[in-house]
């Protein structure tokens, strides 16, 4: 029942995106602004979790939408716009990380700069929440120290909650490679935070 409702909503959203893309292709640029308003948070979050830096994540988000707008003709109507943008985000962020061999700013520093992640309503006692929040902070910092592709796979799997097949599709790599990258990424983090 719920599954059907979710699938139905997803199909409706996809059709709605198609309509907006069609209008944009016909010359109505404001239609693209609606798509930006719907998608920019998702794009920003993937970039932010991979680069660990709000300014770089904002720049990458802009780049993603510039690229999407410039290549809008190549979007196949009927496919998922979210998946299309996610693929661009991951590719652009990996390129960015490779170019800069980024020495990321830790989350502690981000907090000092006032970039506090949004609060979420998680379950558990206040003590549990504090522990999980502390673990998450350390995990995010550890993720920033991973090689680009391991970082991307871990973020997509455990932060974005994608299935392995979806990650393979997003990164255009074989499923076996996704599993290997995930294994190595987790192992690397386990070694980094082994004393957790």
């Amino acid at each position, binding site marked *: 029942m719920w599954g059907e409702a979710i699938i139905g909503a997803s199909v409706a959203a996809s059709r709605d995106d198609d309509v907006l893309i069609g209008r944009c292709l*016909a010359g109505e640029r404001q239609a693209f602004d609606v798509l930006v308003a719907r998608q920019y948070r998702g794009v920003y979050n993937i970039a932010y979790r991979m680069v660990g830096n709000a300014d770089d994540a904002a720049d990458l*988000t802009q780049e993603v939408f*510039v690229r999407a707008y410039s290549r809008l003709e190549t979007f196949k109507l009927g496919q998922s716009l979210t998946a299309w943008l996610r693929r661009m985000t991951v590719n652009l962020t990996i390129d960015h990380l490779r170019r800069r061999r980024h020495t990321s700013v830790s989350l502690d520093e981000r907090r000092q700069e006032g970039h506090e*992640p*949004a609060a979420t309503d998680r379950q558990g006692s206040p003590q549990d929440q504090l522990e999980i929040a502390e673990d*998450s902070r350390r995990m995010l910092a550890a993720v920033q120290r991973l090689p680009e592709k391991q970082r991307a796979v871990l973020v997509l799997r*455990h932060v974005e909650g994608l299935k392995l097949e979806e990650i393979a599709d997003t990164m255009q790599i074989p499923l076996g490679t996704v599993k290997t990258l995930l294994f190595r990424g*987790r192992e690397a983090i386990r070694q980094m935070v082994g004393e957790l």
Partner: protein
Amino acid sequence: MNEVTSECKTVRALLQEYIEGTLTAARKAEVEAHLSRCHRCAQQVALITRIVTALEAIPPAEPSSELPRQIAARLADLPSPAERRQLRAGWGTLSVYAAAVMAMTALFTLAWPTISKVTLRLLAPVISRSQDMAASALALATGAWEALLALAPAGRALLEALWHPLSTLTPYFLAYAVGEAAVIAAIIVISRSCRRRSVQAPFVSLL
């Protein structure tokens, strides 16, 4: 069980899939049976599970509310998809023309030795004849020019002698020309009218 055994190695190779939940029921039961006996492996699983839990609990980050406006400003500088199509179409046509011109030029350049030989062979008689004609025409023109120069004073005297009577006769000549034109026009109109009615005009032979 505190030592790393061969069973531990086998189970650890399966731990990622165990955590992912992609093991078969039988394999999962084997792993869980081992974990209940092996404290080290159970610790490994607990650690990885904690890592995964912590990663999954990372809260979403909220981007600046200015970001959509900044994106819109970037997009405003770009050509729209419709403009890009027009631009591509223009370049497409231009590139077809350019390619055609380049291909023709290349073909002509490559074939030039053959073309020049064949052309010269075909045009040899014409060239020879035109050279003769040009020489004859030049000689004739030169002769005519010299004759004109010689006759110029006599011609001028003749024109001056004729001018006075011609100028007096001009109105008569004009009247005659207008009358003649009117007669010819009338004959043409009548003959066309007769042709439309399939009637033989009796005076067409006058023309």
